[in-house]
Structures are given as structure tokens and as C-alpha cells.
């Protein structure tokens, strides 16, 4: 039962992704093509350089035209607009993002896929850690709030949630950096490694040191919303008949709260958590830039500053893929947590 559900979701998501890539390709077609043409021109010029010794000027010109025609054909630039969009979309789906204009990967490569791919683990590291801690603190706090609703802890933390609601995480980051990095130099200003990188055990711990401030910022802003949502969901679950029934059966309060209540509230809490995590992807973009954290978000900054369109596009395609995977993950987790989906039956 569950597996059917999983397969259906995956199929749906794949379908959606294909549509989105087509939309992207259509939207950015002109720009991409300008870049590709420029790259082709450059490439052909290089090839011509190798041939100048051998050929006459007339022969060179013909050579240039031949080569250009070859490349145009290869990249389908000689076809009308719809097929062009189609081919572009297809190559994007195959993860063939072409070469960058300027940016190079750590190994000096210009393949966009490599450039973007090496940033992925860093973004994942930062944001999964932050989310995990967020959820942990948020859910526990939320449960505490739900147990004594309307009392001091609940009210005060709710007010803080509202205060923090409209605060851009990157602005808080700026202030914290100004304070802790420049005024009181506790933390490093950014990046993943110190320059020069330390050796031995310190080399392993060094990224953690760099991770500290961004992680702290994310968590300090993030868990309030989680707590508020958990509190609401748990509060509404606590009013259900089966909770009263569990108490009537003489079960220990601990079991009732953390077992029956939390477990029943888990599906909507998971949904809310993952959804807000996904929406924080946007904030995360800017956030990485502020900390020069070398992840996908920071790559956007760099690509914009250097006007490197292929990298932007490739990054966008992969970001969307991750975003979608997040949505699928959400559905799968929800399905696992809620037996009504996991073991479908007569409701």
C-alpha cells in the first residue's frame, strides 16, 4: 500500500520537474543562447588559431563558417524556437549544464555541473544540521507550551515568535557578525576553512568552528516558529477523545503526552516543519552569502557578481530539484507517520 503511494508521488514529482525545466528553458532561452553563441565563437576562434599557419585567409573564413555551422547544429541553434527550447530542456534534464563563462571549480574545471555539485554538500551540512536542532528544540518547547497554555512560558515565547517572524535571518547575521567577529573577535568571518588551514585534528574541527556562528544564527531565529506550530497542533490534539481515553485508562502522563499525543500530532508537525524548512531555502541563499559559506546559495551571489549565466541556470535547476525532493520527502514521511496512509484500509 505504502509503496504504491511512494511510487505515485515520485512519478508525480518527476513529471512536475520536467514541466518546470521546460518553463525555465523557455523563460531563459534567449539569454542562454546569447551565452552559448559567445562560447561557440570563442571556441571556433581558438580552433582557427591552430589553423592560421596552414590555411589561406579565404580558406580560414570557410573553415570558420564550417565550424560555426557544426556547433550550431550540435547545439540545435539552427532550428526554430520550439525545438530549441525542447533541446535545451532535454540537456538540462540530463544534467548537462554546459560550461561556465568565468567561474571555475576547485579543480579548475569549467563544467557547470561540477562547479555546482561541489557546493552541494556544504549547503546540505549547514541546513540539515540547523533544521535538526531547530526541530528538536522547537518541538520540545512547543510541547512544554501546550501543557500550560496561556500561562507565562506560552505567552512570552509566542510574543518572541511574533517579533522574530518578520526578521530577515541575514540581517540578524549581519549584526551578529559585526558584533562577534569584528567587535569581539570570537568567530571567524566566514568561509569554510581558515586561511591558512590548520593541520591535524584542528583541520577537522576548523569547519565546525566556522559552522558555529551561521548555525547559531539559524537556530536562534528558527526554532520559535516551530515551537509555536507544535504548540498549536499539540493543543488541538490534546482535546481529542482518545487522549482523554488514554488518561482514563490510567496511563502515565508521560506516555500520554510523548506517546499518544506527540505521535498523533507527528504528521502535521512534520508537514509544517518541512514546509517551513523549504521556505527557508530562500532565506538561506542570502544567508550563505553573508557568511561566505561556500554552498549553493553563495554560488548565486558569485555568479551574479560575475554575470555567469550558465552557472546561474545550472544552480537554479539543481536548487529546484532539491526543493522538489524536499516536497517528496515530506509526503513520504507523512505517509510513514500516518497509518491511515501507510496502511490504507476502509476508513
Amino acid at each position: 500500500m505504502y509503496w504504491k503511494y511512494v511510487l505515485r508521488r515520485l512519478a508525480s514529482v518527476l513529471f512536475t520537474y520536467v514541466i518546470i525545466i521546460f518553463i525555465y528553458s523557455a523563460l531563459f532561452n534567449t539569454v542562454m543562447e546569447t551565452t552559448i553563441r559567445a562560447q561557440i565563437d570563442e571556441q571556433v576562434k581558438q580552433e582557427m588559431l591552430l589553423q592560421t599557419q596552414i590555411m589561406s585567409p579565404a580558406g580560414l573564413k570557410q573553415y570558420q563558417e564550417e565550424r560555426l555551422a557544426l556547433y550550431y547544429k550540435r547545439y540545435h541553434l539552427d532550428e526554430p524556437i520550439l525545438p530549441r527550447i525542447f533541446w535545451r530542456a532535454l540537456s538540462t534534464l540530463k544534467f548537462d549544464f554546459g560550461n561556465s563563462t568565468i567561474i571555475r571549480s576547485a579543480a579548475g574545471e569549467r563544467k557547470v555541473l561540477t562547479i555546482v555539485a561541489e557546493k552541494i554538500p556544504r549547503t546540505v551540512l549547514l541546513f540539515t544540521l540547523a533544521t535538526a536542532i531547530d526541530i528538536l528544540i522547537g518541538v520540545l518547547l512547543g510541547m512544554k507550551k501546550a501543557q500550560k497554555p496561556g500561562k507565562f512560558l506560552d505567552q512570552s515565547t509566542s510574543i518572541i515568535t511574533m517579533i522574530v517572524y518578520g526578521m530577515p535571518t541575514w540581517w540578524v547575521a549581519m549584526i551578529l557578525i559585526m558584533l562577534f567577529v569584528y567587535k569581539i573577535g570570537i568567530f571567524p568571518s566566514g568561509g569554510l576553512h581558515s586561511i591558512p588551514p590548520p593541520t591535524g585534528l584542528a583541520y577537522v574541527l576548523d569547519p565546525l568552528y566556522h559552522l558555529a556562528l551561521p548555525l547559531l544564527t539559524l537556530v536562534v531565529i528558527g526554532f520559535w516558529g516551530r515551537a509555536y506550530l507544535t504548540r498549536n497542533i499539540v493543543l488541538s490534539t490534546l482535546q481529542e477523545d482518545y487522549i482523554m481515553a488514554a488518561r482514563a485508562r490510567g496511563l502515565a502522563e508521560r506516555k500520554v503526552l510523548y506517546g499518544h499525543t506527540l505521535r498523533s500530532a507527528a504528521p502535521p508537525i512534520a508537514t509544517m516543519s518541512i514546509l517551513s524548512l523549504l521556505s527557508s531555502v530562500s532565506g538561506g541563499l542570502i544567508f550563505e552569502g553573508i557568511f561566505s559559506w561556500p554552498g549553493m546559495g553563495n554560488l548565486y551571489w558569485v555568479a551574479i557578481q560575475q554575470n555567469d549565466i550558465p552557472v546561474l541556470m545550472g544552480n537554479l535547476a539543481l536548487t529546484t530539484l532539491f526543493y522538489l525532493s524536499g516536497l517528496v520527502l515530506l509526503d513520504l514521511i507523512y505517509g510513514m507517520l500516518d497509518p491511515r496512509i501507510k496502511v490504507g484500509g476502509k476508513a
Partner: protein
Amino acid sequence: MEKLEIKNVKLHYYTSKGIIRALDGLSFDLRAGESLGVVGESGCGKTTLGTALLNMPTPPGRIVGGEILINGLDLLKLSENELRKQIRWEKMAMVFQGAMNCLTPVYTIQKQMMETILSHRKMSKEEAEARIRKYLNLVGLSADVLRRYPHELSGGMKQRIVIATALFLEPQVVICDEPTTALDVVVQAQIINLLKQLKQKLKLSFIFITHDLATEAEVADRIMVMYAGKAVEIGTNQQIYGPQGAAHPYTKLLMAATPRLHQKVDQLAFIPGTPPDLLTPPTGCRFHLRCPQVMTRCRQEEPSLIEIEPAHTVACWRCYHE
């Protein structure tokens, strides 16, 4: 158990609109091995009674007075911990209304039943499982249901599970709160029969709460009629349903309002007026505004339960005079 005595219990709900006096001085007893039926209209306090007996008033309710003595031990004076360990499910268990929603949807039946047994008794898993199967059998279910989730089961099956769960610790008193209301008639009959069998076999004491007079007639040895948070008449099955009929005007009207299969009915009888507002209950006898036999005294003084024949008490000035 020997005796369950409820003495002058008051349960009030403290809402933002005022204090709702849901139970306002309720008194009755339950003897070993008997089943007491509690009847009344919606809003008379029947369900509140169920939660009060386990000392679990639904917030914002609070028990503000009276005693609930089980073999002389006052429940209302026990701490939450003591209640959990000694009373709930040990001495008293509850079969809930609308078995729809009293089983946690995310746990299997097995987990829920095991959890309940093992919370109360030190047993090995095998012993616990054996006990569970025994009681499932008793209610007519196979052990298959154990690995199912509540949403996979029908209403009747869930009700049986709830009954089995209530019984398997062999409590002394079982409170059934509208156990058949949400079920169709056929299943209803099955459940009623089941309860009658169990009562015989296990020699349990029941408190059977319902608004359905017909079911009550089947199962109850004694009946208590409630109105507006108070008991207005308590008598044996025979006394209330028998040929002489009930004494209290309210009970009489209730009976009249139930259509009989073999009677020709031109017009449905009903009780005029609406149930009283428990925020500001009427003075004197709470029924006086709707009573066809009201006297001056009824408006001024509240009657208490007075015995008019052995084992038959009524709270009515009219009955007292007669």
C-alpha cells in the same frame, strides 16, 4: 467490591460566561453485581457523571463538592498518581461513547491494549498477550484485530475492543457511556447481548449511561433518572418500566414520549419547553417550568430524594404528598 456510594457530588464548569452547574448535588449507590442505568435528556449531566466518577473532569470543569466512596475510600481525596495506580482501570473502567474516536489512530490495537495491561500489572509479554486474547474471544473477536489500526476496523469491532480493554483488568465497576449510540441497530443488539452475558459471567457491576430508554430496559437492574444535574428518580427496573409506571412526572413524560411498536400513534408526545440553562438554574424544583403537575411548593422549595416505596426514591413534592 461491596458498594459504590456517590454522595452529593458537585461538578461545575468554570467558563468565561459563568459557572455551569453540570452536576449539582448528585447522590446514589451501586451495589456489587448490579447494573444501574442512568437516563436523561441531552445536557442533563450524564456524560459529566462518567468523567466525574473517574475524577477526570474535562477542563474547565472542576469537582467542587461531595464524596465518591468506593468501599469507603473517597476518590476525590486521592492524588492524581494514586488515582492512576489504584482506581482508574483497576477498580473502575469506562467504556466510551462513540468508540469512533477513543482509540489512538497512530498505534495498533495490540500496542494500545498491551500498553494498558502492562501499565497496571507486572506480567510477561506472553501472559499479557494471553489475557488480551482471552478477552477478545469473550467479546467475539479474533486475534487478527491486534495488528490492525483503528481506522481499519468497523464501528462494531471498535466498540468490542473498547469493551474488552475495559474488562481485561477485571475492574469492580464498569461505566458504560452510551456504548451503542453510534452503532446501527443490528450491531446494537449484539453489543447489548454481549454486555448482558458478560455481566452474568463475570459478575460485574455496571453503570450504564444512555438516553435510550429501550436499551436501558434491557440491561439495567435499577434505573436512575437525571434532570438538570440532579437525580429525580431512582427505582428498580420493574418499578420504573413496570405496569404501575414511574412516579416522577418527568419520567412519566419520558416514557410517554417513546413510541411503542404496537400502539397506534396519531401524534408524537413530547415534553414542552427546553432543558434548563445550567448557568442560572430555576429556583425550587428544576423541572417545575415544564411540569404538567406543578404546585406552588415546587416553585419555591427544591425537593430531595424521598423513598415512596422500598428501593424507590423520588424527588417530587407531588409524589410525596401522594
